[in-house]
C-alpha cells in the first residue's frame, strides 16, 4: 500500500482549477478506481462518467498526465506515481462538470450519415473474409477519444464541416458492408469534410480498440472520394455507364436527441 496524489480538474464550462487529492492505493488499481475512491472518501460531488469499468462501453475517456485514455483501462503501475497524476476532462468537448464532458455533438453529427441500406432481395450470404474489414470498424465503443485528439476538432473546432474520425469509421463500416447499396461519398466530400483530415494518425494512436482508423477506414474512403469526384478517366466511364452505387435511398435521421 502506498499513497498517490491525484491532481483532478474541478470546474464547469465557465472554468475551474486542478485540485489535489491524496489517497492510499492498492495493487492493480486503475485511474477510475482512484477517482471513485476520491468520490467516496473526499469529494462526493466529483463528477465523472463511467459504466462498465472493463473497457467495453467507452464512457470514461479523460486525459491522464496529458494522454487521452480510458480511465478504467489505465493501471496506476503504468504511471509515474511519485509525482501527482493529473486527470483532466477531454479537451475537445465542453465540460459539464469536472471530468464529464458534453459529447452530444457526436450524436448530432452522426445524423449526417445515411443509414444502412441493404440491396433489395439479397440472400444475406456473406463470407467471413468479406466482413472482417467491417467488423474491425464495428469494434468501436464510441469513447470519442479519436474525436478528442483530432486536430481539426481539437485545435480548429471545425464541428460544422467535419464529422471526425469516429464518424468516418462509422461511414466506412457502412460503405464497406458487402450488402450495402447506399452512396455516402457526397456527404464525405461535403458536410463530412473528409478532406480536412491530413492523416497524422493521432486518432489511430489513441484508439483503445486498436482500430486502424487512418489506414483502414479514412484513407480508403479518401480514395473513393477522389475516384468519384476527381479522376477524369473514371469520370468519363461513369458518364458512359453510370455509377456503381446508385443514390436512391431517401435521406433520414431526422431524429432528435436530448
Amino acid at each position, binding site marked *: 500500500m502506498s499513497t498517490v496524489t491525484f491532481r483532478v480538474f474541478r470546474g*464547469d464550462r465557465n472554468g475551474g482549477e486542478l485540485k489535489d487529492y491524496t489517497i492510499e492505493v*492498492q*495493487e*492493480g*488499481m*486503475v485511474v477510475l*478506481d482512484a477517482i471513485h475512491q476520491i*468520490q*467516496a472518501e473526499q469529494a*462526493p*460531488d*466529483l*463528477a*465523472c*462518467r*463511467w*459504466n*462498465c*469499468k*472493463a*473497457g*467495453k*462501453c*467507452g*464512457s470514461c475517456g479523460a486525459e491522464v498526465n496529458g494522454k487521452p485514455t480510458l480511465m478504467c*483501462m489505465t*493501471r496506476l503501475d503504468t504511471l509515474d506515481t511519485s509525482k501527482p497524476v493529473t486527470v483532466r476532462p477531454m479537451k475537445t468537448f465542453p465540460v*459539464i*462538470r*469536472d471530468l*464529464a464532458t*458534453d*459529447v*452530444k455533438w457526436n*450524436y448530432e453529427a*452522426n*445524423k449526417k450519415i445515411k*443509414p*444502412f441500406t*441493404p440491396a433489395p432481395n439479397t440472400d*444475406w*450470404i*456473406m*463470407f*467471413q473474409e468479406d*466482413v472482417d474489414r*467491417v*467488423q474491425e470498424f*464495428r*469494434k468501436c*465503443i*464510441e469513447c470519442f477519444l479519436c474525436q478528442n485528439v483530432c486536430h481539426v476538432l481539437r485545435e480548429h473546432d471545425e464541428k460544422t464541416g467535419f464529422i471526425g474520425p469516429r464518424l468516418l469509421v462509422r461511414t466506412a463500416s*457502412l460503405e464497406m*458492408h458487402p450488402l450495402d447499396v447506399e452512396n455516402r461519398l457526397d456527404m464525405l466530400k461535403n458536410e463530412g469534410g473528409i478532406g480536412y483530415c491530413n492523416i497524422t494518425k493521432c486518432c489511430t494512436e489513441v484508439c483503445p480498440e486498436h482500430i486502424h482508423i487512418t489506414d483502414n477506414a479514412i484513407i480508403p474512403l479518401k480514395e473513393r472520394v477522389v475516384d468519384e469526384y476527381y479522376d477524369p478517366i473514371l469520370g468519363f466511364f461513369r458518364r458512359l455507364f453510370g455509377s456503381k452505387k446508385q443514390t436512391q435511398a431517401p435521406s*433520414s*435521421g431526422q*431524429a*432528435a*436527441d*436530448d
Partner: protein
Amino acid sequence: MESYTIHDYDVLVIGAGGAGLRAAIAAIEQGARVGVVTKSLLGKAHTVMAEGGMAAAMGNVRPEDNWKVHFRDTLKGGGMLNNWKMVMNYTKEAPDRVRELERWGAVFDRTPDGRINQRNFGGHSYPRLAHVGDRTGLELIRTLQDHAVKMGIHAHMETTIYRLLTDAGRVVGALGFNRQTGEFLVFRAKAVVLATGGLGRIYQITSNSWECTGDGFSLASMVGADLIDMEFIQFHPTGMVWPPSVMGILVTEGVRGEGGVLKNSEGKRFMFDNVPERYKGEFAETEEEAERWLQGDRNARRPPELLTRDVVARAIRKEVNEGRGSPHGGVYLDIASRRPADYIKKKLPSMYHQFMKLGNLDITKEPMEVGPTCHYVMGGVRVDPDTQATNVPGLYAAGEVAGGLHGANRLGGNSLSDLVVFGRRAGMAAAEYAAKQSGSYQVDEAQVRAYIAEALQPFNNPQGENPFALMKELRATMQKNAGIMREEGELKAQLEILANLKKRAWNTSVSGSRAYNPGWHTALDIRLMVEISEAVVLAALARKESRGGHARLDYPDPDPTFAKINHIIRRSSDGTLTVVAEPLPEMPEELRKIAEAKDLKELSDKVGA
C-alpha cells in the same frame, strides 16, 4: 418553488439497453410518439457488456436444432420454474429477431457457407449462439441504436426516473431528473415500458455496471406491480478475481464454449465430478471423450465445463472452500493449452485484451484465475407472457427487469435474444394500449411536488450519512448474508440489517450543486436498492430448497413441493412486502412431452424435434 419541464408521449420507455431500444422501435412502428429515458448516453447501457452471444435455434451449424430443443434446454436449465408460454414465444421467435438485426446492419461472425455462425454455450444442446467474437452485446446495442435513430427516436440521455406516476390505479407517466443539470422532468405518457435491466449492484462482487441498481423492480413494486421469483440470482461462474480492483468483471462463458477447461490447484478437471443427477448421461464422462467433442466428433458428448451456470458456480465455490483453489481464491480457467494463440485472439479478443491490460496476464500462455460473480437476476416484474403487461394498467416490462422466462436459472445466451423478443412484444402492446386510451388522465401535481422535495432532501440534511458508505454497507452485507449460498439465520439477520439501512437511506447528506453530482445520485439509488434487496431476501427465506440460482445450506436439495410453485412478491397498501406461493401455470400436454424428454433421442422420437 422548484420548476420542472413537461414532456408528453404515447409511450415512455425507461431504459435504452437492448430491450428498451427494441421496445421503442416497435412502438414507433405502431405509430406511437415515443420517448426513451436512459441514465447513460445512448449505446452505453449494460447490454454493451454482453460477450458470448445470443441464443436462437436457427440451425445454421447443426440443422437438427429447432425451437423445441431450445424450449427443452431452457426449461431444464431453469429448474422447470419458467413460465412455459414465455419460453415458447421466446424460442419460436428468437431466430427471426436475430435475422432482423442482420437486416438492420448487424454483422455476425459467419459459417463457412456464409451464414450466421453459432457457438456452443452452457446448457444448450447444440451450437446456438449467434455472436461477434466476444463483443456480441456491442453489436446488438449499436445496431438497435442506429436503427432507432433512423426511426426517429427521441432520447433523454443521462436522465434518471425517480418515481412512476399513477392516476386511479393506472400508470400515467414518471418523474425524473436530468443528471447533467439536476433539473426535474415530468413525463406524461399513456403507457410506460420498464426496460431498466438488473440489480447486480446490490452485491459487492458483480459483473454489473453502476446502472444496475434495480430501479425498475422497485419503481414497479411501489405502484403495486407484482414481482416474481426474486430469490433467483445468477452468480456467473467466471468473474475475474485478481487484482482486487477488477474483482467480478466478467470472463465470458465463450472461453469454455471455445474449449476452455476448469482446473483446481491440483490440476484436476473437477467438473467431471460435479454432474448433477438430472444431467447424467448428457455430458462426457472422460477427458478423452471431451477432447473428441472439441475436435468435432458428433458422437462424443459435451464437456462438463458446459453445464449450466448455477452448477458450475457452486462447483467452483466447493473447490475453493475445500482448499483446492488458486492463490487469489478462484480456480483456473485454461484456454492457453487448448487452442492456438491466434485462434484465441480471433475468437476472444476482448478477453485477451482485458487480462493483458488489467491483470498483466497473457491468456494465450497462462490460465486465468476465475470465481463466481453476481451477474443476472432471473426474477423480476411479473408480466403477461404475450404482451409483457404487468398487473398495473399502463405498465409493461421487458428484458432483465421482467421475470418468468428464465425460471430458476438462465442459460448463457438466452438474455440477448430475450431482450429483442420481449422488447418488441412490450413495445407493440404498449403502443396498442396507448392508442386505445382516450379522455384525460391526470398527473397529480401535489404528488410531483412531494416527490421532488423528498428527492432534494439530502441537500438540506447536513448531519446525514455519506451515501457511498451506506452503499458499501448494503453491498457487503447482501454479499455475505444473501449471496451464492444462503441459510435461514443469515437471511433473517440480513432482514434486520435492511430494516436499519432503509431508515438510514432516507437520512443521507450530499454537498455541492445538483449538476452531475454522483453523491446525490447515489443517495437516491440507495433508497431503491434497499427496497429490492428486501424482496430478494424475503423470497430467498421462503424457498426452503436449493434450485438453480438459489442455494440453501440448510436445504441443500431440490424439494418436489417447491418444484410446483413460483413466489409472488407483493406490496400491501401499508407498504410492506409479502411473499405468496402460487402454483405454476398448467403446461399443455404436447409441450410437457418436449420439456420432460429424457434426452435428445427421446425428444426426437416422441415429438419429432
